[in-house]
């Protein structure tokens, strides 16, 4: 009898507070009887019935297809015009400029490309320059910048980061501002647009250079050193211009608000592109009023000051004129993708509905399938 009672105590493991042979209290190793430790937490088990899943497929299909159609129609309504002006062919106006390139030429090479627009462009027209086979996303290239120098830090201005090597110091060992390969390879072609009306008179189209860079880039990330924007020559004392630039950074623009590091063309260039074929915003053609199209139908001329060499790496240069909608630029991919996915979901919903009707009633009555 005594043995069995001793057994019961031992087996159940009730040692809470029981004293061991030494007389000291032995702590119980039994886990707490809490819901967490005993895996009894209240839980919700999702029961997926046909009633919950099937409507979801139909709903998704019914939402996605109109969105896809909207995207596709919007993208189709965006007008885009592209001109390649690299000058590969002998017949191209810019052929001479692309061949006779040298760094030290003082007289810039100009070429002029005529084109015509079949359709008028309404609302704001955005002018992009596009480059191909230009790997702005190369690792060594992306690293080659100093954001604290570009933020206006005075110490970094004269002591650029090591990542900028070999574009860190210029002639006579002066630090380069802005340092790095990204800044050094800044796009410096000048593009001008002229409208040629039927009599032959050319009118220059006004190109706005404000608002092409991200607001936060222009006002927070990029700051000129020193406190005075108007006297940048003094702020940049002690530094030299990047190797492949014609003018130093404080002469990028006559306007103080667009000079130095906060020059918008410079900021746009410094935002490295994701793919080797990319476009960057160059200018904006503001619409005049809602009645007249911004770019009417007709003949135009593009005047290029061909400064930027791309033949050496088989790159291409082009100008793109595009309108913009709520979804951005012209890209039919998203519209087609949404329509496809919406249709697939709808179709799957129909298929599942058929399967459920044919076999669903049967499975409810059968035994458990093994």
């Amino acid at each position, binding site marked *: 009898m005594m043995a069995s009672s001793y057994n019961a105590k031992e087996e159940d493991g009730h040692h809470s507070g029981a004293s061991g042979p030494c007389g000291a209290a032995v702590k119980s190793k039994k886990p707490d009887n809490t819901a967490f430790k005993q895996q009894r*937490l209240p839980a919700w088990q999702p*029961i997926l019935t046909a009633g919950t899943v099937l409507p979801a497929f139909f709903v998704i299909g019914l939402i996605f297809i109109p969105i896809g159609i909207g995207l596709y129609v919007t993208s189709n309504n965006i007008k885009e015009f592209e001109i390649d002006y690299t000058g590969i062919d002998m017949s191209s106006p810019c052929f001479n400029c692309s061949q006779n390139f040298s760094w030290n030429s003082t007289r810039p090479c100009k070429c002029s490309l005529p084109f015509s627009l079949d359709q008028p462009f309404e609302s704001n027209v955005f002018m992009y320059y596009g480059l191909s086979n230009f790997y702005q996303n*190369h690792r060594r290239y992306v690293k080659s910048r100093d954001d604290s120098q570009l933020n206006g830090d005075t110490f970094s201005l004269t002591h650029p980061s090591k990542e900028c090597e070999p574009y860190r110091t210029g002639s006579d060992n002066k630090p380069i501002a802005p340092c790095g390969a990204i800044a050094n390879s800044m796009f410096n072609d000048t593009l001008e647009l002229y409208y040629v009306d039927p009599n032959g008179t050319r009118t220059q189209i006004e190109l706005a250079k404000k608002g092409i860079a991200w607001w936060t880039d222009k006002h927070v990330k990029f700051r000129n050193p020193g406190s005075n924007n108007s006297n940048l020559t003094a702020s940049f004392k002690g530094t030299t211009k990047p190797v492949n630039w014609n003018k130093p950074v404080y002469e990028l623009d006559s306007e103080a608000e667009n000079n130095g590091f906060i020059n918008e063309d410079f900021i*746009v260039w410094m935002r490295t592109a*994701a793919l080797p074929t990319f476009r960057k*915003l160059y200018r904006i053609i503001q619409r005049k009023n809602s009645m007249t199209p911004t770019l009417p139908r007709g003949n135009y001329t593009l005047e290029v000051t061909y400064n930027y060499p791309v033949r050496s790496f088989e790159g291409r240069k082009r100008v793109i004129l595009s309108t913009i909608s709520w979804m951005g630029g012209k890209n039919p991919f998203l519209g087609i993708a949404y329509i496809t996915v919406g249709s697939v979901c709808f179709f799957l919903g129909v298929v599942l509905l058929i399967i459920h009707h044919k076999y669903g009633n049967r499975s409810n009555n059968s035994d458990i399938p093994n």
Partner: protein
Amino acid sequence: MDSNSVPGHHTPTASPGSYCTHTFLSIQSWATANQEYGFIIDGATLSLVLNPSPDANSSRYKSLFLQICQNCCAVLCCRMAPLQKAQIVRMVKNSKGSPITLSIGDGANDVSMILEAHVGIGIKGKEGRQAVRNSDYAIPKLKHLKKLLLAHGHLYYVRIAHLVQYFFYKNLCFILPQFLYQFFCGYSQQPLYDAAYLTMYNICFTSMPILAYSLLEQHICIEVLMDNATLYREVAKNAMLRWGPFVYWTILGVFQGLLFFFGVRYLFSNPALQDNGQVFGNWSYGTIVFTVLVFTVTLKLALDTRHWTWINHFVIWGSLAFYVFFSFFWGGIIWPFLRQQRLYFVFANMLSSVSAWLVIILLILLSLLPDILLLVFRKPKSHAQQKKPRSPAAGGPQSPQASARPLLMRTFSDESNTVI
């Protein structure tokens, strides 16, 4: 007992070999008659069977004995020395198919058997603590074996197997877009994602949900598991870590990685994604891919979770919220003392673009579509199991190999059969 028992008691005059052969042949002929057999053998006989003797036939005795045992639904060995218990276990371990063995005992004489088997369970018995000290798991009573095996064992296996598969899968999804990007960046090893994202993906954004899953998940609740011992067969033979499930997870990871990368790639054929005409750069590209990635792998886990406690809700939605919060925070200020401000305002700017939102939603849904379909097509099985716990599994035609089931269930369901 409705099975025949064949005693294996040794008589000095008969030779063990011929007796074994005769028994085995008898059982073979009777086995097709759909009967169950039990086998009783004592320690002395066993020593003749298992220990090698100068007799040329001795090696056959062991294999014959093994075959007899495999054809019986229950084998009772009594009066065995501790070493013989271990020998039996070793014999079964090395038999064809290499089954996983479990031995349970409460005394010091069970220790060698407990050590020999794959899983050794010790019972805190009246014979002291030796068995417990040498065991992998210790239980106070034999009846606890049922819950240990059917509930905890089953759940533990499912959780661990899912954890392992999920870890490989989420890292495959993570790295494949980065690998594919190399084809577009001149093979220069430019990372697609920002350094902060690379560092924090595995630890901060995707670790807590799977941790909660592997601690709390009950794909079938404990009560149902206890009532239906047959459910244990779902995880037999390492079912969730075989080639089939592994290939499925891998293909899913590859599919999603390809989808993330190329979905955003075709969106970026025109990188002017904002309504003010401004252009996105490479960090925005990487951030879009990363956002889709984090949401997809977390929502995949949400789809796999069948037992939602408050902890699961907290970690899953919390991880996603933490990702968004961190992205705003990381890109929210110009960090002093850092030479690079790569991600400044990138995340917020990405969210201001309708196209970016649309592509994120599309890619998340498309990535999860295979899983949702699988969930729907597999639905009838688990649904029926949840609904009808009291399955009449004991009846129906049984194959001889499956004859172990009724005995298993009888042992576990009848408390009075417990030893202690």
